[in-house]
């Protein structure tokens, strides 16, 4: 399963072979600038932009509940909300669009009008995730740049940051020192954890995907955290050999979907998001188990870990595994539910 996964991801990212050595010298991929951060360099007649908007609304409405019936995808009402957000990101003064302005008025936009048509066509016809269309995701209080090749951070994962917050409030010693975010993707967890820790903490954010690492670095810079978050490329704990036994905390949202389920996911996910970020092997547990062992050797005594799982049975399996196969490594183990009440996270402390 693991090998088929690697080859699939190289199909998705043909330029960057994932088998490259971790610290290669090739120029890192250049991340795209999210739409809302591009200069409003293009002009369009207000009436033309309104025509685009009317067309886009029709497109969204015609979807009805087809996608949601098909694979749990978005329905018209969600698409219409996304359309508003696209306008917010693309148009310099979005309010102009809804006013009864003179037909001759021009508006400044951050993409050519033709591109606006193309972006919405991709959203509806190709089911390209909205976040890739606009190049960002709003996550917690952050706006993170994302693009193809990088997992779009999920709202469930926000809870891990709260768990870290609780842990460092309960034991202030954890705040000062090294933390690791394994499989950082867009850098979401690494950045949010660094902000929770404050000035005395440092986060090592690791990802195997060079595209993810480049995007994570871009996001780290956007939040001016270069001094506190370092992004390293490599597999799980491999690039952290120099800090073995020194980590105060480890967080991770590793790939956890069982391989057989990948192809039945909603089209936004299965067709567009990197399989390397999703496929957790036969039962989805491969990476979680690997991380449990890694955490046991990388954490300091009393160090904290929080892992996201596929939920319910999987979190119990992870907990059982730690209790039975890794007896004595960890204590104060807990399963924590996400906002929807699904038992989602496994947390604990190094004994």
């Amino acid at each position, binding site marked *: 399963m693991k090998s088929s996964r690697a080859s699939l991801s190289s199909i998705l990212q043909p330029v960057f072979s994932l088998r490259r050595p971790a610290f290669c010298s090739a120029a890192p991929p250049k991340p795209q600038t999210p739409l809302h951060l591009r200069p409003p360099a293009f002009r369009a007649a207000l009436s033309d932009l309104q025509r685009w908007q009317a067309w886009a609304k029709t497109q969204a409405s015609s979807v009805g509940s087809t996608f949601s019936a098909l694979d*749990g995808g*978005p329905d018209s009402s*969600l698409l219409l*909300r996304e359309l508003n*957000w696209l306008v917010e990101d693309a148009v310099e003064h979005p309010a102009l669009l809804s006013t009864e302005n003179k037909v001759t008025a021009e508006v400044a936009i951050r993409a050519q009008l033709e591109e606006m048509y193309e972006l919405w066509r991709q959203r509806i016809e190709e089911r390209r*995730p*909205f*976040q890739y269309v606009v190049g960002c*995701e*709003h*996550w*917690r*209080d952050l706006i993170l740049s994302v693009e193809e090749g990088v*997992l*779009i951070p*999920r*709202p*469930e*994962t*926000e809870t891990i940051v709260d768990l870290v917050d609780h842990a460092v409030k309960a034991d202030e010693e954890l705040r000062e020192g090294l933390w690791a975010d394994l499989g950082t993707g867009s850098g979401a967890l690494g950045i949010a954890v660094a902000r929770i820790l404050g000035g005395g903490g440092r986060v090592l954010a690791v990802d195997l995907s060079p595209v993810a690492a480049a995007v994570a670095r871009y996001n780290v810079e956007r939040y001016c955290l270069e001094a506190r978050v370092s992004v390293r490329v490599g597999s799980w704990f491999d690039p952290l050999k120099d800090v073995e036994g020194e980590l105060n905390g480890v967080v991770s*949202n590793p*790939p*956890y*979907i069982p391989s057989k*389920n990948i192809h039945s*996911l*909603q089209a*936004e*996910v299965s067709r567009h*998001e990197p399989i390397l*970020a*999703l496929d957790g092997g036969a039962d989805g547990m491969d990476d979680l188990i690997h991380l449990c062992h890694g955490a046991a050797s990388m954490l300091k005594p009393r160090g904290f870990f929080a892992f*996201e799982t*596929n*939920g319910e049975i999987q979190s119990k399996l992870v907990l059982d595994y730690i209790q039975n196969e890794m007896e004595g490594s960890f204590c104060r183990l807990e399963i924590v539910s*996400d*906002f*929807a*009440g*699904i038992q*989602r996270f496994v947390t604990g402390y190094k004994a």
Partner: protein
Amino acid sequence: MAHSILRSFLRFPSGGVCNFTKPACAYSRWHGSFYFYRRANNSRISDGVTSFHFVKEASIRGYPSGAIVACSRNYNSNVTSTFETVDGSEYLAMTDEKLMSQCEMDTFKVSGPGGQHRNKRESAVRLKHLPTGITAQASEDRSQHKNRAAALSRLRKLLALRVRNTIDLETYVPPPELVQILPTKSTIRLDKGSQIGPNNPKFALGMQALIDLIFAVGGSVSDAAKKLGLSTGALSRLILSDDSLRQAVNEFRVEKGMKPLK
């Protein structure tokens, strides 16, 4: 204040934005206005959660008396009649954090396994204020954080609209939070500080006090205006400046057989 009276607007103006989740029975069995009132209090339960009796108003004037207990729900099952000394306006004076601690937060149920399986912004937030059962929700923003803030400010507004405090008209002096939302020409305004408008978070407190007064004077704008040192026209304009305020006042006036303000 011995008890405050909660008034629900079942036909809520803003569509899906606000509703009561519980008690479902109050919804389905009656239409029209309900008054919720708290039992006389003599002790407080530790978690600050009160039990309510949902009461159908029999006669508009005689507040709790003659009321029919329609349905009751105790959040704390071993307490049947609980005691609570929080005055209605105190909820609004609470910090966001304190008010949040009295709320249960729901984000919308995700069908299926969620997490990596899904690309859907489950950023909608619903807050349920446990002491009153009032809920507010927000879903228009992309971030759950912002939706939570929006839901909280909506909740404040709903508390202002629905939690009624009784007023003694004989000794009535408009509270400072109400004075702040009055136009500067009001003769009871001693300082000439600027007027707080509907977009200011402090507006809710003033609005609550204003509705309390309008209820106390039986819906008469001219009587309320006198108490506030304003002309009837000026007070009408203030009421009309905010949709939910206008709606609350007009619903009450219509019930009293008066013409709605336009």
